């Protein structure tokens, strides 16, 4: 375990105190902005050092799997751009997509059978289902090469990483595993500080970078650890793990020691892979919200956790080789609405600057200067209603947009100066006590269970990456958790009801849609003429290969245009 030195703690406390003063001084609608400004005014937002590295990592070097075509990382590349390389699919031929093969997914957890994306490398597809089973299949035929069966329910989004001939994946207990990419045989496993099955790792520079969303002490020997989101005393963790032998090189606890003064508190989970700057070796991580949120019967309106609740909803710039925190920027202090900054950050070059772009369930896109962490622009997207309230009235429900599953839930994409995000306008009724929750975990259950999907819609938005200006917006009639995936002149996404869309990147016009045989809470990988798409919900969960010219026709005709350019 590695924690910042005292100097860093002092700096953090100082910033927290100043931030709290800024919050107190600011009006309700300016709270967040005031705090950010204070941070922005600080020459170095925060720095941390550590000499507690236990395993030395190799110099920066990309795994050979990252070369050439394919989809070798969770979001296509180390920058998390979700751009397909060398694909032949485009607007002119997308209607020729048909089903090349399907593979049934037999096991499920709470969120169905699939909640992340596959990888594709050298003609092989690697995928992990929500029972944590890892499978390798031939891209051409769907023939299964090997399965590593775990049968451990995972919350997701999980999924594999590739590097140096190995597959790395979290199990549904509390481990990161390394498997032989050719055979699926286990090479090593490393225990982490809490339940796994909630993050897709990424490999670079001799390391595997992974994180956990809800770390806490183990329940008991011989038992699988179960996810207890925002459970008492929980914390997210970020890790740099040596790829060769699984030794932990460094780790970072995302909730400060003491859990903000009360053991009922927890959160700041790591949900998605970091973005990695391959030139500098710096890794960029996003953290989730603090809990309980909004509160419990005993501690309404987050009264158990005064202050900014570091490092929840924070972008962390960590040197991947040493674990040293170069800078951090908390983008949504003291959140009370489960408004995570959970999404995979994206490395962007736009407007003559190197930026890092963060986003999440609060429905805001943030662009920061990559070397200093200073805010360059921010853009609220989708519907916002009552999300500026700092307190909820006692005994009364307030409808909040974005709701518990609202805002930007899934990874965005970046190509040619434009960012693409799927945004959900889905409200949740909140009360000060999260409907008489007894802790953070029941606050999650109570709010999830009152979020009615049928009341929601979604849209795909295109933003100018240099300024945050909205270029266009295409609305869908239902909610969606399908990410954004760029393939040449198209951007793909899907809605929860299983409709897959291809929009023209230039103006957002719909050029193709297809009804999948089940609901989708996952995102595709693309290689050459093929899209590998997990369809994990409904009565026939399956992994589907859509290919140009395949016999089983996927097209249901050119759909009517629905976009609304802005």
């Amino acid at each position: 375990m590695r924690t910042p030195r005292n100097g860093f703690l002092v700096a953090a406390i100082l910033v927290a105190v100043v931030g709290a003063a800024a919050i107190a001084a600011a009006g309700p609608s300016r709270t967040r902005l005031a705090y950010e400004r204070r941070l922005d005014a600080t020459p170095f937002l925060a720095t941390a050092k550590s000499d507690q590295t236990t395993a030395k990592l190799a110099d920066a070097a990309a795994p050979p799997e990252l070369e050439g075509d394919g989809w070798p990382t969770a979001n296509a590349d180390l920058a998390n751009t979700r751009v397909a390389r060398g694909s032949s699919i485009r607007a002119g031929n997308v209607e020729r997509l048909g089903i090349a093969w399907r593979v049934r997914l037999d096991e499920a957890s709470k969120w169905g059978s699939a909640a992340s994306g596959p990888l594709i490398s050298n003609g092989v597809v690697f995928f992990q289902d929500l029972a944590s089973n890892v499978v390798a299949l031939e891209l051409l035929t769907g023939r299964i090469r090997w399965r590593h069966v775990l049968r451990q329910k995972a919350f997701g989004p999980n999924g594999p990483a590739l590097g140096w001939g190995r597959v790395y994946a979290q199990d549904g207990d509390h481990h990161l595993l390394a498997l032989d990419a050719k055979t699926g045989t286990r090479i090593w496993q490393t225990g982490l500080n809490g339940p796994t099955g909630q993050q897709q790792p990424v490999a670079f520079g001799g390391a595997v970078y992974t994180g956990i969303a809800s770390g806490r002490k183990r329940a008991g020997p011989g038992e699988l650890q179960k996810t207890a989101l925002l459970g008492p005393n929980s914390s997210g963790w970020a890790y740099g793990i040596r790829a060769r032998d699984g030794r932990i090189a460094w780790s970072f606890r995302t909730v400060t020691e003491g859990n903000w003064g009360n053991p009922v508190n927890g959160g700041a989970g790591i949900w998605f892979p970091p973005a990695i700057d391959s030139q500098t070796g710096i890794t960029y991580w996003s953290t989730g919200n603090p809990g309980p949120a909004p509160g419990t019967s005993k501690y309404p309106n987050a009264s158990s956790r005064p202050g900014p609740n570091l490092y929840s909803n924070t972008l962390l710039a960590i040197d991947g080789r040493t674990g040293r925190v170069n800078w951090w920027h908390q983008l949504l202090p003291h959140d009370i609405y489960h408004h995570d900054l959970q999404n995979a950050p994206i490395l962007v070059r736009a407007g003559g600057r190197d930026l890092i772009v963060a986003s999440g369930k609060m429905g805001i896109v943030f662009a920061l200067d990559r070397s200093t962490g200073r805010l360059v622009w921010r853009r609220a997207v989708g519907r916002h209603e009552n999300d500026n309230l700092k307190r909820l009235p006692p005994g009364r429900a307030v409808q909040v947009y974005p709701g518990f599953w609202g805002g930007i839930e899934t990874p965005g994409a970046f190509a040619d100066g434009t960012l693409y995000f799927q945004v959900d306008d889905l409200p949740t009724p909140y009360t000060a006590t999260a409907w008489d929750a007894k802790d953070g975990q029941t606050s999650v259950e109570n709010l999830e269970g009152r979020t009615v999907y049928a009341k929601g819609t979604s849209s795909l938005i295109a933003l100018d990456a240099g300024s945050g200006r909205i270029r266009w917006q295409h609305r869908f009639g239902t909610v969606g958790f399908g990410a954004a995936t760029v393939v040449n002149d198209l951007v793909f996404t899907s809605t929860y009801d299983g409709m897959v869309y291809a929009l023209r990147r230039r103006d957002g016009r719909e050029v193709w849609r297809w009804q999948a045989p089940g609901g989708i809470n996952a995102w595709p990988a693309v290689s050459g003429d093929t899209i590998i798409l997990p369809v994990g919900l409904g009565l026939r969960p399956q992994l589907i290969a859509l290919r140009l010219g395949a016999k089983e026709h996927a097209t249901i005709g050119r759909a009517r245009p629905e976009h609304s350019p802005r």
Partner: protein
Amino acid sequence: MLPHRATSARVFLLSAVGVVMLAGCGGEAQRVADGKMIYGEHCSTCHQPDGEGYAQVYPNLAGNPIVRLPDPAPVLEIVTHGSASMPGFAAELSPSQIAEVVSYVRDAWGNDASPVSAAQSR
């Protein structure tokens, strides 16, 4: 005295039966009420608070013919062991809790099917 004693015995017997019946009714009502709590914690995220589910994703439970079958065995099997993209709940809920939540689902939204005992869910 005999008639009196007989009457007393009859009154006692009737009272006892009544208490048992009341307890039975109360038990069923309580089971459904407890089941509603469990539904809110474990089921309504997917099948939704009104039991309507979500098209292509989560089957509706309101008016669902499998849920309303006179024989609760199929729905108990699905809740206990899972089906397709729905996980089983055997590891998270006891047979008694499964009976409660299935009793609630069979009762709610006009389903009007009979409650289920813990013995049936084992």
